[in-house]
């Protein structure tokens, strides 16, 4: 789960980390009111889950209410494309914050290093630019250190990291403290990524976290009710939102072939095989062990709510899941939602013969059975058209 900048900053503030004062706004008027309260200059910042907002025109400094009005109006509703072509993301929300006079910009982050099975701290005196760009232009300027999984990051160790990153002596202590606290925040809040870019020193010599990119481990949300209740980004894909409400594991893709499989691995593999057959998958949907009609109705409703979908592939390898139950579920679900789109079904594994007999008996005219995964992929591509 990725947090918007302002949500990340609110998280930092709860842990006592220094962030600029700011106000969340979703209308131009609210943004102007916020600016007046904060006092000029203010930064008007688009709240979207993508980097490169500044370059895309999504961050502007307003010196007075006229400018605040003008910039808020420009930014709300604009489409932001990410540096790697991600998006576009439409801006629905702003974060208006007190302007900071930047003396120097650093980079600080804590990430889960899956490979080393430890948290890793990164620090650089070259802030404000992409971390990959820092690593590419001057690898020695990016200091990386793993965090001991039992003892955490000590103050002395953090001071050494700051020294190795050549952080100026006057602020090295404070920067080291920020590192120690960021590790504590990651552990306490189950964050697998915290990136502060830039971490600045202002004209008063204060160290301030000027940006926040935070990813929270979705498996931990049961112990973070305040994060679980955060409003969904309004830009979320409608099918993904619908699937989330129903507790389905669903990812939208840009094709026209609806996919339902059981098990994450088999489902990913199904997408690949469909693509190899020349088709374009519309989604990933792991039905898990859900073989009951209700679960299948839920899944089919989400898939068919996408107007692009012109055919559906149902790829099941029954282990614990019994294929006869799945077949009953498919028959009941297609009847109940009046599914007319072509449906290609591949049922293999436990009780597959019984399941296939049930499907044959039901005689659904839009249902096509294929014995193998590859055969099913070819069939659905043929039926989906372009």
């Amino acid at each position: 789960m990725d947090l918007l900048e302002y949500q990340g900053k609110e998280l930092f503030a709860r842990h006592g980390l220094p962030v600029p004062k700011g106000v969340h706004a979703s209308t131009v008027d609210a943004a102007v009111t916020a600016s007046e309260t904060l006092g000029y200059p203010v930064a008007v910042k688009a709240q979207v889950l993508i980097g490169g907002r500044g370059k895309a025109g999504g961050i502007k400094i307003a010196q007075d209410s006229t400018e605040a009005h003008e910039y808020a109006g420009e930014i709300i509703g604009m489409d932001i494309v990410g540096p790697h072509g991600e998006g576009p993301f439409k801006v629905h929300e702003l974060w208006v914050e007190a302007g900071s006079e930047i003396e120097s910009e650093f980079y600080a982050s804590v990430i889960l290093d899956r490979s080393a099975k430890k948290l890793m701290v990164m620090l650089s005196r070259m802030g404000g630019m992409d971390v990959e760009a820092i690593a590419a232009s001057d690898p020695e300027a990016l200091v990386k250190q793993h965090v001991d999984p039992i003892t955490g990051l000590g103050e002395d160790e953090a001071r050494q990291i700051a020294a190795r990153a050549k952080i100026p002596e006057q602020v090295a202590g404070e920067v080291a403290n920020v590192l120690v606290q960021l590790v504590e925040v990651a552990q306490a809040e189950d964050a697998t990524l915290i990136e502060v870019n830039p971490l600045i020193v202002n004209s008063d010599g204060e160290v301030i976290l000027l940006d926040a990119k935070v990813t929270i481990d979705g498996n931990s949300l049961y112990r973070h009710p305040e994060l679980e209740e955060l409003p969904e980004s309004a830009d979320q894909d409608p099918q993904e939102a619908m699937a989330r409400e129903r507790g389905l594991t669903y990812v939208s893709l840009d094709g026209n072939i609806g996919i339902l499989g059981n098990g994450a691995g088999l489902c990913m593999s199904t997408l690949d095989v469909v693509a190899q057959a020349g088709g374009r998958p519309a989604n990933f949907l792991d039905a898990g062990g859900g073989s009951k009609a209700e679960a299948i109705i839920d899944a089919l409703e989400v898939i068919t709510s996408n107007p692009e979908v012109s055919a559906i592939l149902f790829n099941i390898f029954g282990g614990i899941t019994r294929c006869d139950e799945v077949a009953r579920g498919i028959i009941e679900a297609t009847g109940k939602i009046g599914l007319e789109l072509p449906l290609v079904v591949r049922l293999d594994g436990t009780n597959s013969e019984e399941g296939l007999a049930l499907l044959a008996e039901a005689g659904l005219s839009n249902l096509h059975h294929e014995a193998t995964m590859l055969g099913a992929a070819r069939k659905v591509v043929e039926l989906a058209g372009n």
Partner: protein
Amino acid sequence: MSIIIDNDTKLVVSGLTGREGSFHGLRNRDYGTQLVAGVTPGKGGQDVEGTPVFNTIAESVDEAGANTSMIFVPAKFAAAAINEAIDSGVETVIAITEGIPVMDMLPTYWKAREKGVRLIGPNCPGVLSPGKANVGIIPAQFFDQGRIGVVSKSGTLTYQIGNELKQAGEGNSTIVGIGGDPIVGSDFIDILTLFEADDETDMIVMVGEIGGDAEEKAAEFIAAEISKPVVAYIAGFTAPPGKQMGHAGAIISGSSGTAQAKQEALEAKGVRVGESPTEAAQIAVEILGSL
């Protein structure tokens, strides 16, 4: 031989009194696995269809001789149960539970390493040594006894490949589901090491997916340490960056963790990678025939 579990496995199931735990624990017993105990705090002294229940895993080790623990408790309590198992004196811990927070798994991973306890999972289907023992939720009917070792991040994909091998007349020494979480107790290289040393394993099928760099590390390791042939399959070529594809660990971060990169890393070290599960199984059968 076979690896990790065999006829000498004495299984204790944490969560045996729960619905899932009893269903699968008793299925494992029906398969022939020696199920010696269940553990549920506060329910010591009861039994589940004749299998005694203890309050702690350590008691099941002392009193029932358990040497392998299976964790089937809800995600909230699972890391504590794994830690308890690591301290109990069992040699192997197989954690089936899905959804354990990664911050809980970091210290647990290191604890298992430090104590020399083999941890498989979490978020895995378990381990099956056909004809000997089954610990977990792998449906044994799709696998025959044979000479191919299988190690996989995915459950259903393993069943798919196992079934294709079976239909081609081949079987398996052991099937190991290592799990789809970002932090798992045993990676590909840990299991490859065991298969290399196992005299009942002639070749290995490795099933990977997007996310992390376990496959890339395995490629290096295979080139340096593994003499037996390895065939791979990787899922997730069509997965978009930044999206979690079902498994918590199946996510492309920026440009790292792609299926393409994994395939290239493996092929660069001479490992053949099947385009589909079917093709991977076909290659395995072909290689086994030529040995």
